[in-house]
């Protein structure tokens, strides 16, 4: 896209990325993260959701040595540097897997399904991975 004027982008939309799959086993989590980082450059109103097995993407102490794939989990810590600050985790998904906020590599906002549903309804664009 052409560069924005100094005043910022002409159109700002609400982009939400919903991660529902585990970090490894398929490429979806990694390639979603790549889109998230690019979107940050467009100065849109961006948010991330982790739910279902997607909550494992934020699990601390991931080690991919045994499967020979890239351990990209530390990149989630860099989201703050990209000004991606709205990161939500579904409370029910976390609890169902015996996880708590202390198990996560970053400090997202942990919300129950009802509240997440309301936030989703406000989005212009929802990408699900």
């Amino acid at each position, binding site marked *: *896209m052409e560069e924005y004027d100094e005043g910022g982008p002409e159109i700002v*939309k609400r982009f939400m990325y919903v991660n529902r799959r585990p970090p490894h086993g398929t*490429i979806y989590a990694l*390639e979603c993260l*790549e*889109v998230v980082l690019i979107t940050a450059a*467009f100065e849109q109103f961006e948010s991330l959701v982790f739910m279902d097995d997607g909550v494992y993407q934020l699990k601390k102490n991931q080690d991919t040595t045994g499967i020979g794939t890239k351990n990209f989990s530390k990149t989630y810590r860099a989201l703050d540097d990209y000004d991606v600050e709205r990161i939500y985790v579904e409370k029910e998904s976390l609890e169902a897997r015996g996880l708590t906020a202390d198990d996560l590599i970053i400090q997202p906002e942990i919300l129950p399904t009802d509240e997440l549903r309301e936030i989703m309804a406000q989005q212009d664009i929802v990408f*699900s991975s």
Partner: protein
Amino acid sequence: MKISLLINEGPFTHQASDSAYRFAAAALAKGHEIYRVFFYNDGVNNCNKLSEPQTDDRNLVALWSQLAKDHEVDLVVCVAAALRRGVKDEIVADGFRISGLGQLVEAGIQADRMVTFGD
């Protein structure tokens, strides 16, 4: 209405590309505009002109190319996802172009609706 499509799966293994194609054709027939079709994840394989399905089956790559030709639809293949999978300019069918992920974000910004086809 101005519509953008995102296709996240390759041809044949999943129905995503078939559904997206039929959606695009139907939308165009109704007078809507397809602003862009973006191919991501294994979806980048939809542009491979070396694809040669059996003659009694549909040829998705050719169908997309024809749609692009008939309606000037912008078919964009993600460069990062493509390189990973060995999809390069020399095997890209007519009507497709390889470009960056920014094209997906821009497609979302410019279109009235973004519709995803995936698994």
